[in-house]
């Protein structure tokens, strides 16, 4: 069972449709017991960082999700703003504290003209050819759909799995242990996105530590 964290931020219908298309059983929930019972958790998100953290805290989920992700080592996939929430802090509309699962910050995209912000559209990724997350995705055709104005700056290069180029390298995928996250929208990235999600669903993370 895959639990999508339902905290009122994001286009979860498309995500659910994509996971179910791939054969997953999906529950949309903010209930701590259901989250703990799920095999894996997806943390979606569209909107502003501060609002998202407030919505997570309002549901009493910040510490709970931290327990599940870090202590129980339950596999978690963060998407777009969901990925950004892994960071320690964000400078989007003022300073906001994040979940702090990764040693990273969220900063505004600064790009030289004629590049535009937000970074909207299909951009290709740079990743290690043998990485399991990208099995079946060819390096020359590795386009994914991005739509964002802020990006993640990782302080530990070991967390960085894939980047895209937009006036310089932009963090596209991060991973630490069983925490995985993508800046792009796999559920909106057609074949490549479905392949990425399938790779994550099928990866054997081993049993989690429980809570």
């Amino acid at each position, binding site marked *: 069972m895959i639990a999508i964290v339902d905290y009122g931020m*994001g*286009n*979860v*219908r*498309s995500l659910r*449709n*994509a996971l179910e*298309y791939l054969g997953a059983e999906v529950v949309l929930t903010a209930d701590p017991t259901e989250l703990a019972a799920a095999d894996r958790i997806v943390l979606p998100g*569209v*909107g*502003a960082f501060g*609002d998202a953290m407030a919505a997570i805290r309002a549901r009493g989920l910040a510490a709970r999700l931290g327990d599940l992700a870090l202590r129980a080592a339950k596999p978690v996939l963060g998407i777009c*703003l969901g990925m950004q929430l892994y960071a320690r802090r964000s400078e989007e*509309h003022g300073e906001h504290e994040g979940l702090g699962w990764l040693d990273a910050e969220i900063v505004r995209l600064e790009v030289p*003209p*004629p*590049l*535009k*912000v*937000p*970074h*909207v*559209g*299909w*951009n*290709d990724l740079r990743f290690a050819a043998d990485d399991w997350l990208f099995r079946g995705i060819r390096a*020359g*055709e590795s*386009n994914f*759909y*991005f*739509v*964002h*104005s802020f990006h993640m700056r990782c302080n530990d290069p070991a967390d960085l799995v894939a980047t895209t*180029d*937009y006036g310089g390298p932009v963090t596209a995928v991060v991973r630490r242990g069983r925490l995985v996250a993508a800046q792009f*929208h796999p*559920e*909106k*990235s*057609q*074949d*490549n*996105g*479905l392949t990425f999600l399938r790779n994550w669903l099928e990866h054997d993370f081993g049993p989690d530590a429980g809570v």
Partner: protein
Amino acid sequence: MLKKRIIPKFLIRGGRLVKAVRFHENFREAGNPVSTAKVYDAYGVDELLFVDIDATPQGRPAAGSVIERVSEEVFMPFTVGGGIRTVDEIAALLASGADKVGITTAAVEDPGFVRRAASRFGDQCIVVGIDYTLDEQGVPRVVTHCGTRRTGLDALEWAQRMQDEHAGEIMLCSIDRDGTMSGYDLELISRASARLGVPLIASSGAGTLQHCREALEAGASAITISSMFLFSDHSPIKVRTYLATNGVRVRSQQGSFS
């Protein structure tokens, strides 16, 4: 590198696809939106745009039911516009599967709405549509209410103002060229893209492959295409191949389920 985007534009009336000339002349029926979306997904187009053209005249937000069905069938980004006036309406459309919403008339009536929507959903979620027609002096002037109400606003100044209000993208739509397949308004596209820091979507006028190339080379980040796909033999694959051959960066990959 970021790719230029090809975006089929779907006008919806009564749950069906339609297409007109200059917004109101020669309405033609053009099929079922859900099955057409699926075909375009298979072609690997980059985004879809749905505009519910009865929504503003009827004083209601864009129909979410079509959108829900689309989101079950395609795994690609899409924008929905038509009659959107409140943040709750935006939230409902996003919950139906839309990634972005298009705001046109409501932005003119209440410019603060764009800022409020952007602060709730993020700038990247808000596409401000600017429908315009050239006045006697050749100045582009904003028109609202699905092409029926002139405002006197200068379209370029308005685009700047909307960027300042945190629009994530600006979509310029020339009413004079809509459905005529006579080419995009390259002059305004080039002036607007030089001035704006947000991506520009060029809409209205595509009739030939050359038109598509010209609009993207003039600085548009994306182009919408409607009549040309519906009523000519130019498919998205043909457009993309032509653009790639002529040095425009576009995606080579196919769509879902390929």
